[in-house]
């Protein structure tokens, strides 16, 4: 183990884990998609409501560990109300941050920097990534006009 436990399980993470945001079902979603992490069995469902090129609302349900659940909850909190372009940019930043790339994290991203501690636990990075890459892929399919539900896998 290279990081201390509290660096990963920060209070903010545990708060998102215990009471995840984005749990209200979205019956009129514009696209819905799923994410799967085969190596640990984490599964999540994601539905997004788009209005005027804005991410109007997000539903996310993660059956997984504290990190993947908290990460998904943060995604719902942060991306809700953002323009599609902004949402995509933020998702790319978070993915870059988790993958250890040299990215600058804007200050107005709320709790997201709490995910940085996960980087010190290499085997858990994919847990934190799941929601973000699922969103990115779902959004890409939506923009390309394929409304079909897909499943994203994180290896």
């Amino acid at each position, binding site marked *: *183990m290279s990081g*201390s*436990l509290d660096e*990963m*399980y920060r209070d903010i993470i*545990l708060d998102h*884990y*215990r009471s995840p945001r984005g749990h209200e079902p979205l019956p009129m979603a514009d696209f819905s998609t799923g994410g799967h992490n*085969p*190596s*640990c*069995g*984490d*599964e999540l469902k994601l539905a997004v409501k788009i209005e005027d090129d804005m991410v109007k609302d997000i539903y996310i349900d993660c*059956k*997984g*560990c*504290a*990190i993947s659940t908290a990460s998904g909850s943060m995604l719902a909190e942060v991306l809700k109300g953002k323009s599609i372009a902004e949402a995509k940019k933020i998702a790319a930043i978070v993915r870059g941050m988790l993958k250890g790339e040299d990215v600058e994290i804007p200050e107005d991203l709320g709790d997201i920097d709490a995910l940085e501690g996960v980087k010190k*636990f290499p085997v*858990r990075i994919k*847990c934190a990534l799941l929601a973000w890459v699922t969103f990115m892929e779902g959004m890409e399919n939506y923009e390309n006009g394929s409304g079909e539900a897909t499943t994203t896998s994180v290896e």
Partner: protein
Amino acid sequence: MEQKIKNMQHSPSVGLLPIDLERIRADFPILDQIIDGNQLVYLDNAATTQKPRVVINAIIEYYRKYNANIHRGLHYLAEKSTEMYEHTRIHVADFIGGVDPKEVIFTRGTTEAINLVAYTWGEENIKEGDEIVITEMEHHANLVPWIQLAKKKKAILKRIPITFCGHLDQSNINEIITSKTKLLALTHMSNVLGTINPVAELTALAKKHGAVVLADGAQAVPHLKVDVKSLGVDFYAFSSHKMLGPTGVGILYGKKELLEAMPPFNMGGEMIREVSFDHVTWAELPNKFEGGTPNIADVVAFDAALHYLEEIGMDNLRQHEMDLTKYAIEHLSAIPGLEIQGPREVEQRGGVISFTDNDLHPHDISTFLDSKGIAIRAGHHCAQPLMSILGKIATARASLYIYNNEADIDALVKALKGMRRYFGL
């Protein structure tokens, strides 16, 4: 009377010697270390076991004094290394119940041993419409080769289900194992549930229908006295590294008649008798299946692991593990929110203890325990179909071996209780 026999089996005084755990632990240099301020507690033995000093030294000694390629050279070192390599083969043959050493094939591991059978015996003998029977508790190593073979040959894969308690459900066994069965492939001990399967009984049934039987012994040979002849199986596979030996050494036991009729697996050096540009004849057993330079040093060092286990005695080892498994199950069961998988009766199971927490994901459990110096495994344990049958996405798994003691279990139990507080449960 039955009760009395049961009690006698539990008493270490009947034909069993008490184990000097302190002495045994001192033989494993890796155990004596502090990780992030915590004493290492190693409970991931179903994945791989630690190595005693005699095994580590055997590897060093081999490279310092005897290293040479085997079977070919006409010099002292080549003769010596060949003799040492072949000595391990004889030892293995003896260890699994006294089979002919020609029936012992060295592979890279259990996975390769099973694949060897699938690609040679399976290719030649499984035909369209034939039935391959597996169980629902198979490791991917004894599952994926058969799924693929069945697909390729248009054969039918049938499975023996498991009961709620984690045993094989034999209520419809006569509809599953029938005259159409060509192969029964089953695990001797589950790497998730710990269940010890009635291999001899099911083999006898399969044999009545003329089927061939392969048992995956990766979790069994390290923990039980195994006699492949009395089990009656045709093929039996296991790995050195799960029984104190080095990684990269697996064993395939196969009945001579079957092995002789099978085509070779890896073509190249060592496995031929005569080669011309248009004709090749195969070497005799076991060389036919050991093409190329094998993992000589690790095979040689595996001999030291077998000696070490024999010195302890497999019956003593089994008794120690039953006692400790009982202790662990008792104490783990008392933790609120914790659910243990597999049979409760220690006579019917090994020391592989899978558990889940009602509120916490196994990966969080494993990361938390790691921060206390406790090594367990979390995930699907290469048994995804079994996970879905259990209705779990994953489990946490603590698995025991000869050097584990009650203090290890106490540390696990204490940490698990602290874990629930940490996550605010």
